[in-house]
């Protein structure tokens, strides 16, 4: 299967490259460049220089050199500059298409057997359920899932509709009967006709957006575009005035050199890469299996001031684990442990399993063990909020050799065995466990027991009372276990100046202790899911940008108002619709990654902008000395780079063009960064891309100039 896929990919890859190339060339059309003002002007200048090459005399006196070879060279570099820009666009789109299609594969889809009639034979075409349309005919064999609602055409079969209707007995279906999507064929084969169009799934709609060629600009992209247009306007005034002065004062400047200066000064680097940066930011998010409703959502994520984190599932693994048996009222830890063992024997929750495992590991094996086989089980109920067993008669068990085996595959191993002889039978025993206040009705608490329970809470645990025959023996100390890596993530979040707030249903004391353990300063205890809405609103009232995660329908209102709402794919449909992002892997801690990605996107855009503008310093010094070289040879003294008189312009232009593809990887990957506070990030990026942007072209242009003079001595 894997090798087959790879084989299928090979022609796909070369096709993809061909498409990238074709897209990049097709986009050279001035019409499709209109949305990118900087590149549009560069192309316009290309046409002007081409015209100069065709008829230099028409541009007199601004074609003083009348050097057609030079004009052709300048024109060629200008065209390549624009092409580099369209290439980066096409590459980013290819990348986005790839991530989108990989996402689509992730969506659980049923592959159905669509029947296609060709000539006189019928052919089976594997088709994903989402691609089926009303009227399509599908074949259903034994074991197949009905992809979508359909009507039986021929054949009689038994179907299991339990997943859909809850009815466990298979149902017989004959021609004319209706098949429900999601049911399974248990026996035989039939042919059916699809009766509905598959509704486009929500996720699908989101994925489609990234593939759309016309992506709306985000507010930040719009603002950056405004800056680029503004700078373009300023340099247009500057160059037009220079050309005018050259004519009026008879300075003998050549228009091609002025155009070269113009294009070099224009923010071509950021102008070329701006669309790619935005799209790649989205692709990076998609690669982490998160889909966003808009690019705006990712930018907002970078601005997050507050992140609301659900304790369960985000900070802790979601299940509390028993860590200690604490006796009260003169009882021993052994008594508590043995009673806890009994009470949890039939409790298959993670908590219950952890109790049995702890008791077993501590060697607290109750002598009443044999009686468990014939005991009455009190399931946990919402009214009593307790669970337990009533041991009645005798029996025997063989215990596995280790605690690990006890808790195997999520179920307690309860193998019966008669070989264990030294376990004695016993009479009726009732063991109950539950929250301290829930067992009060059965076993009155004492001052001492209340104190113990509170101290367990204080230390971050959850006390669970163990009662045997109406006597409170003590407590099981249950403790939350932190998710691996969550502490580091919280540290990173705080370093970035973002406030994590923990939302939990726990008692204040427990909440406080967990928050402290994981390094969170703010928490909202005893919160119901609906309380998140209030928290989001109160933070927003203080002009803070709030990020949150949610899965339940209860979370929908909060997700809708939060600036960054990340819904879990496992969550309810309303939650997903209200959120502006959905995590297909349903990992709540991913909200932190999303925030980091948002920051990375903004930083990348800023870094390339700053780099692009800082580049201008060197370009002035490369071109201005030769601008009016014929009239004012003295200006040559400004040539601090020592560039060749004839090669300086080409060197600067080539650098200006080549820097675009060199930065494509940066644009697509994003600037790398370690979590740090805003000013540290700013300092680091300013040094690398700002100061680096000033220095790099001095080095680059000089190097290119040396190379050119080697080729053209």
């Amino acid at each position: 299967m894997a090798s087959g896929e790879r084989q299928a990919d090979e022609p796909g890859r070369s096709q993809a490259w061909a498409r990238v190339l074709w897209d990049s060339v097709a986009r050279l059309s001035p019409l499709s460049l209109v949305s990118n003002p900087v590149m549009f002007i560069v192309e316009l200048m290309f046409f002007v220089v081409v015209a100069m090459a065709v008829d230099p005399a028409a541009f007199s006196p601004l074609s003083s050199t009348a050097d057609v070879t030079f004009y052709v060279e300048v024109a060629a570099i200008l065209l390549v500059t624009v092409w580099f820009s369209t290439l980066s666009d096409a590459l980013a789109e290819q990348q986005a298409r790839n991530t989108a299609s990989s996402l689509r594969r992730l969506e659980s889809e049923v592959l159905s057997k669509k029947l296609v009639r060709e000539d006189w034979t019928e052919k089976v075409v594997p088709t994903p359920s989402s691609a089926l349309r009303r009227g399509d005919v599908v074949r259903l064999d034994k074991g197949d899932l009905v992809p979508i609602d359909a009507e039986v055409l021929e054949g009689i079969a038994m179907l299991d509709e339990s997943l859909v209707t809850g009815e466990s007995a298979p149902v017989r279906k004959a021609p004319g009967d209706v098949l429900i999507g999601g049911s399974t064929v248990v026996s035989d084969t039939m042919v059916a006709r699809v009766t509905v169009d598959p509704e486009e799934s929500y996720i699908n709609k989101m994925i489609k957006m990234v593939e759309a060629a016309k992506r709306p600009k985000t507010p930040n992209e719009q603002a950056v575009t405004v800056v680029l247009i503004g700078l373009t306007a300023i340099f247009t005034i500057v160059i037009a005035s220079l050309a005018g002065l050259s004519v009026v004062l008879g300075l003998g400047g050549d228009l091609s050199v002025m155009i070269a200066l113009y294009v070099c000064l224009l923010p071509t680097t950021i102008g070329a890469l701006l669309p790619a940066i935005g799209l790649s930011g989205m692709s990076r998010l998609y690669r982490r299996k998160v889909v966003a409703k808009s690019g705006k959502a990712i930018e907002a994520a970078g601005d997050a001031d507050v992140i609301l984190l659900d304790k369960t599932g985000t900070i802790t693994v979601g299940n509390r684990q028993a860590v200690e048996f604490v006796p009260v009222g003169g009882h021993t830890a052994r008594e508590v442990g043995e009673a806890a063992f009994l009470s949890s024997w039939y409790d298959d929750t993670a908590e219950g399993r952890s109790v049995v495992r702890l008791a077993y590991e501590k060697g607290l094996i109750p002598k009443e063990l044999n009686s468990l086989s014939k005991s009455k089980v009190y399931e946990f109920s919402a009214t009593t909020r307790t669970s337990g067993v009533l041991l009645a008669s005798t029996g025997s068990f063989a215990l596995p050799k280790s605690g690990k085996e006890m808790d195997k595959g999520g179920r307690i191993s309860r193998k019966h065995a008669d070989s264990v002889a030294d376990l004695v039978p016993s009479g009726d025993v009732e063991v109950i466990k539950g929250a301290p206040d829930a067992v009060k009705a059965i076993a009155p608490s004492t001052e001492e027991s209340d104190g113990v329970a509170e101290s367990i809470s204080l230390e971050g645990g959850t006390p669970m009372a163990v009662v045997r025959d109406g006597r409170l023996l003590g407590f099981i100390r249950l403790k939350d276990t932190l998710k691996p890596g969550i502490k580091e993530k919280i540290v990173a979040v705080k370093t970035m100046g973002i406030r994590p707030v923990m939302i939990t249903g726990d008692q204040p004391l427990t909440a406080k202790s967990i928050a402290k353990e994981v390094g969170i300063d703010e928490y909202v205890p005893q919160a119901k899911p609906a309380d998140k809405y209030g928290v989001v609103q109160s933070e927003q009232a203080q002009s803070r940008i709030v990020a949150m995660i949610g899965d339940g329908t209860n979370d929908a209102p909060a997700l809708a108002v939060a600036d960054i709402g990340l819904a879990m794919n496992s969550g309810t449909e309303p939650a997903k619709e209200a959120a502006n992002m959905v995590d297909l892997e349903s990992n709540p801690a991913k909200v932190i990654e999303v925030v980091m990605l948002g920051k990375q996107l903004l930083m990348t855009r800023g870094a390339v902008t700053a780099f692009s503008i800082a580049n201008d310093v060197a370009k002035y010094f490369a071109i201005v000395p030769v601008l009016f070289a014929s009239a004012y040879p003295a200006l040559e003294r400004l040539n601090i780079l020592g560039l060749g008189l004839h090669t300086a312009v080409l060197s600067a232009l080539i650098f200006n063009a080549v820097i675009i593809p060199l930065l494509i990887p940066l644009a697509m990957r994003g600037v790398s960064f370690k979590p740090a506070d805003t000013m540290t990030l700013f300092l680091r990026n300013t040094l690398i891309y700002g100061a680096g942007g000033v220095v790099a072209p001095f080095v680059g242009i000089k190097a290119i100039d040396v190379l050119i003079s080697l080729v053209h001595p």
Partner: protein
Amino acid sequence: MITILDAAYVVAILGGSILAAKAIAPYIAKIYTHGPSRLDRFLDPVENGVYRLIGVDVHRGMGWKEYFLSGLLVNLVQMAIAFVILTFQGELPLNPQGFSGVRWDLALNTVISIGTNTNLQHYNGETTLSYLSQMSAIQFLQFTSAATGICMGVAMIRCLLAGSKDLGNFYVDFVRSLTRLLIPFCLVAAVVLVALGVPQSLNGYQTISTVTGASQMILIGPIASLVSIMQLGTNGGGYFGANSAYPFQNPSPVSDVFEICLMLLLPTALIFVFGEMLGPEKKREYRPILVAAYSLFAIDLAIGFIPTTTLGPGMETRFGGFFSAFWTVVTTAVTTGSVNASLYAMHPFVILAAFMGMLIQATPGGKGVGLMYMIMFIIITVFVVGLMSGRTPEYLGMKITARDVKLVMVAFLIHPLVILVPTLVAFASGAAAQIGVSMNASGFTQVLYEFTSAASNNGSDFFGASANTPFWNISTAIVIFVGRYAPIAILLAMGGSMIGRKRSPEVGLKTDSLLFSGVLVASILILVVLTFFPFLAVGPILQYLHGQANFLG
């Protein structure tokens, strides 16, 4: 290069000015926050009288449009009055020298120039204007234009304050600027100037006998009062054509230093006022403005001081090369435009430094307006580099929107537009050749300087009365008018939209940090100075490369 003693002078003068500015800032802030003052007892009745007279509701705040238009209207009315006085000065009293009325185009240029705090003078005051014109038209406009500039700057500050509901009331700000700031400060300054030997008299020409026994006619007049507002209000329009190079405007090195301090005082004080008005929590935000303004100023000075040992033939020898260069850099850095030595005599580097001051307009720039320009640069810089901190750009907690950026870019664009296009037109139309400007680097420098000075509302120039032709009068009047009001209107429009905008309590990019100040300086140098680099290259830089130490010839 300069001597250690010279450097000590610079540090002492700048340090003294900054300290004095810091000292008076709380008082100035109170004028606009209406804080209690001991002067209330005397001034409240006067001001309330004025408000009643012009029918102003003191408590009614204005939006940006109304505030700006009120200022513009007040200025236009005052210019119109001054225009009438200048045109008919021949028939009006206080004209002992018997000057006739001023030609319409010169009158227009003069009222717009003085009324916008530019003070580009295409006339020699001593041979053109009567006492009445000097005192009412010129001096009156110098007060009101300075007050207008301060009001606009204060309105801009109010836009940036959290909790502002409007920009304030222009008329109230205007009246209080005059009664509590300009008039009392000028009074003190004038008294000091008189003590330093500047004349203040209405007696016209004085006939005195010289030591050799011959008799000589000299002109004196209400000079001290004019000099005080011209320097303090960063106007720069002198009583005499030769401005502060003339002994009666600037009799001694002491008066020279005093006048330099006067020029620096209010523009610098307004930076501190910004901090005062922002309140204790955000007070430090004045720092990047102060640091950037004075760092750029220091760069200007460094460039200007490179050649002080080589005095040109026309150099004013009373103050020496150092003080002449120092003055020139200061007067362009704060857009005053008064001169203490002829620009023709200056080394190209001094001119280059002067250009930088006028192109940036915020080092620290004209009072009020310089602050606005610096805020404009901050918004551009925050936007361009702020993204690198990983957040969408914010200033004072406010998100910078695409509209803010658009307005800032347009305001920024006006400067090159109104400098470069008219320069081109002046050469293309032959207007430059007409007044004897040569078609070479020196000539180009002079024309570029004229329009740069006009656009940045500076007022210093090479031409003086020789540019008193319709082309130069009208073209510079247009450039001055657009260069003054368009950026103010646009920046106030941006500021107006910031009133009531959400302010994040979290701080992303710390704009009050030294790091940001450094980035701000770099971005101003790249975005502003380098934009004009090709023109400076064929102007003063080429002159230097050609070995023309000065502009004579």
